[in-house]
C-alpha cells in the first residue's frame, strides 16, 4: 500500500516549549490511524503541521508524497480537515458555510449543490441546514464541521478530536460515518483522540503520544499483546502505608508470584501478571498473610489504557476525564 501520510523527525517549538520532540510516523492509504494521547501531548500541533497550518521547527511531513511546507496548496486540495475547535462563523447558515467552503475548494454549479446535499445528508443535518449556526448545539457544530471537511471528497482526512465533549449519540454517529467514509471513498483517516474506546473501535493502527513523543505504535491488538500480561486491579485498605506493595514485591522475590510491573492507583495497585485469573488467589492469600485487608479485585485483558499506563506511567482515562470536565473553560492554545 502506498503511503498517505508521512512525518519524519518532526519538531515544533513554541518559544522555550518543545511541543513536538522528533515524531516520525507513516500511515498507509486507506488506513484509519488513531493518534492517542492526553491533552497537551502534542497531537494537535502535529495535526496543524500535517495540515499545512503550522510550519515545523525541524523535520518534514508529506501527504500522498507532497511536502506539507513546499507544496502546501496541493496538499490542501488532497486533505479534508476537521479541527478540534470547530471554528464556524455563527452568522452564516449551515448551507452558506458549506457552499462557501465548497467554492474555495473550486467546486461550482451542480457539483457544488450536489456535494453540499450529500455531505449534509451524510452527517444528518438536513433539517437544520438552513438555520443560522449560532443556534446549533455542540454536536451539530461538530457534524457540520465534519461535513465541511468532506465536501471535495478528500483522499486524506484529518480529524482532531472529533468527538471530544460530545454526547454518546453524536459520538456513535460520527464513528459510524467514519467507517462509511472509508468504505465509500477509501479515504485515509488520521484521527486524534483522548478516548481509548474510540481508538480501539475505529483505528487499524494506533500511535500513542506523550510529551511530544510517540511512545508506542501498532495495531490495538498488538499493543495490548505487547503488555504481555493480564491486568489485576486490587484495592487495599491503608494504601498509604505501602505495606501491600512490600508484600507483593516480596511474593515476586520469593517466586510465589511471577515477575511483572506493579503500579500504584488511587485505591490500591495495578499488577501486570501473566495468567491473571489464576494469580488472583495467590495475591489475595499473600496479602492476607501479611495482614492486609483487600477491597474489590478485578482481572482483565489489557486495554489501550493499560498500554498507555505501561508506556508512560500515567492513566490516560484519568487525564481525559479531568480534561473533559475542564472543557468548558479551556482556552484556545496553539499547542
Amino acid at each position, binding site marked *: *500500500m502506498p503511503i498517505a501520510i508521512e512525518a519524519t523527525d518532526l519538531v515544533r517549538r513554541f518559544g522555550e516549549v518543545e511541543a513536538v520532540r522528533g515524531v516520525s510516523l507513516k500511515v*498507509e492509504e*486507506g*488506513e484509519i490511524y488513531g493518534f492517542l494521547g492526553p491533552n497537551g501531548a502534542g497531537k494537535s500541533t502535529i495535526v*496543524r503541521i500535517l*495540515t*499545512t*497550518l*503550522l*510550519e515545523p521547527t525541524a523535520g518534514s511531513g508529506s501527504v500522498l508524497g507532497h511536502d506539507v511546507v513546499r507544496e502546501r*496548496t496541493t496538499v*490542501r*486540495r*488532497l*486533505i479534508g*480537515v476537521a*479541527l478540534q*475547535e*470547530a*471554528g*464556524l*462563523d455563527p*452568522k*452564516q447558515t449551515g448551507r*452558506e458555510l458549506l457552499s*462557501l*467552503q465548497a*467554492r*474555495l*475548494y*473550486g*467546486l*461550482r454549479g451542480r*457539483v457544488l449543490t450536489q*456535494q453540499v446535499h450529500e455531505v449534509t445528508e451524510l452527517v444528518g443535518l438536513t433539517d437544520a441546514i438552513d438555520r*443560522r449556526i449560532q443556534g446549533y448545539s455542540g454536536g451539530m457544530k461538530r457534524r457540520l*464541521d465534519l461535513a*465541511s471537511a468532506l*465536501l*471535495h*471528497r*478528500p*483522499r486524506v482526512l484529518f480529524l482532531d478530536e472529533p468527538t471530544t465533549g460530545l454526547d454518546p449519540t453524536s459520538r456513535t454517529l460520527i464513528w459510524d460515518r467514519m467507517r462509511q467514509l*472509508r*468504505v465509500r*471513498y*477509501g*479515504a485515509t483517516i488520521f484521527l486524534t483522540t483522548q478516548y481509548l474506546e474510540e481508538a480501539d473501535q475505529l483505528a*487499524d493502527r494506533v500511535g500513542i503520544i506523550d510529551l511530544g513523543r510517540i511512545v508506542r505504535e501498532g495495531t490495538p491488538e498488538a499493543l495490548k499483546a505487547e503488555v504481555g500480561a493480564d491486568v489485576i486491579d486490587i484495592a487495599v485498605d491503608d494504601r498509604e502505608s505501602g505495606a501491600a506493595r512490600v508484600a507483593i514485591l516480596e511474593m515476586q522475590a520469593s517466586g510465589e508470584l511471577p515477575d511483572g510491573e506493579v503500579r500504584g492507583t488511587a485505591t490500591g495497585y495495578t499488577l501486570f501478571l501473566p495468567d491473571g485469573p489464576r494469580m488472583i488467589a495467590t495475591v489475595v492469600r499473600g496479602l492476607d498473610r501479611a495482614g492486609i485487608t483487600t477491597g474489590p479485585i478485578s482481572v482483565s485483558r489489557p486495554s489501550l489504557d493499560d498500554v498507555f499506563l505501561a508506556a508512560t506511567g500515567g492513566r490516560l482515562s484519568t487525564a481525559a476525564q479531568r480534561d473533559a470536565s475542564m472543557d468548558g473553560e479551556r482556552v*484556545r492554545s*496553539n499547542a
Partner: protein
Amino acid sequence: MTATTAEPRTLAAPAGFLSDVSAMTGRAVRGLLREPESFIPALTIPLFFFVVQLGALGAVAERAFGISDYAAFQLPVAVLFAAANTSGGNALVLDIANGYWDKLSVTPVHRSALVIGTLLGEVVAVIGYSVLLIAFGWVIGVRFAGPEVLGALGLLGLTVLFGVGFAAISVAIALATGSVRATQTAFVIFFPLLFLTPGTLPRELMTGWFKVAVAVNPITYVLEAARSFLFRIDAVVLAKGLLAVGLFCALTFGLTVLGFRRRAKLG
C-alpha cells in the same frame, strides 16, 4: 484495511483568485447585514452629530464663520465619520479567535483573498452608509456644486478610499495580534485624527496649536477635498485630498501586509 473500489479522486480544483475574493466578499457582506448592532450605531452616531452640530451652530454659522450653508459644510464630516466606523477588523479577529480562520486556511484559498474579501465587504458598508447620509442631506436641502450626480460620486469615491484605509488599520491589528480587545481599541488610537480637522469651522479661522495640528493631519485635506464637491470643485484642493488619502491608504495597507505576513507565519 479495506480495499477501495476505484482510485479515489478529490473534486478539488483551482478556484481562481477572483472567485476566492468574490466568495469571501459575499460572506463579509452577509455578515454585516446580519449584524445590525454593528451597522446601526455606525450610521446613527454620525447622523446624531450632524443633526446636533447643525442645531447648535447652523443659525450662527454665517455670522461666525461666514458659511451660509452649514448643512453642506457638515455633511462630508458625517460621511467620513461613518466611513471611519467600519468594523472589518472586528469580524476578522473573531474568525481568528474562534478558529474559523483556520478552517478557511486549510482550503486551497488564496490567503490574501481572506483579507481582501473583508476589505471589500467594508467598501460595500461604506457605500451603504454614505449613500444613506448623502440622501438624508439631499432631503434636508444639501446640494452638490456642479452636476449633482458627479459631485455625489466624487464624494462617494473619496469616502470609499478613506473608509477602506481606515478599515485596514483594524484589519492589520487583527492579523498581527489575533486579539479581540486590541483590535477594538485600535480604533481609539486613530480616533483623535478625526477631530483634529476643520470639522466645525474652516481652517482660516483657527489659531494657535490647534491650527498647526490640523494642518499636519492628513485627514484635514481629505475633508477639505470632500467639501469641495459641495461648495466649489477646486483641482488643487482635490489633488491634496487624493494625495493625503493615497498616503494614508499606503500606510495602512502596508501595515495590513505586515500583519498578514505575521499571521501566515504564526500559522
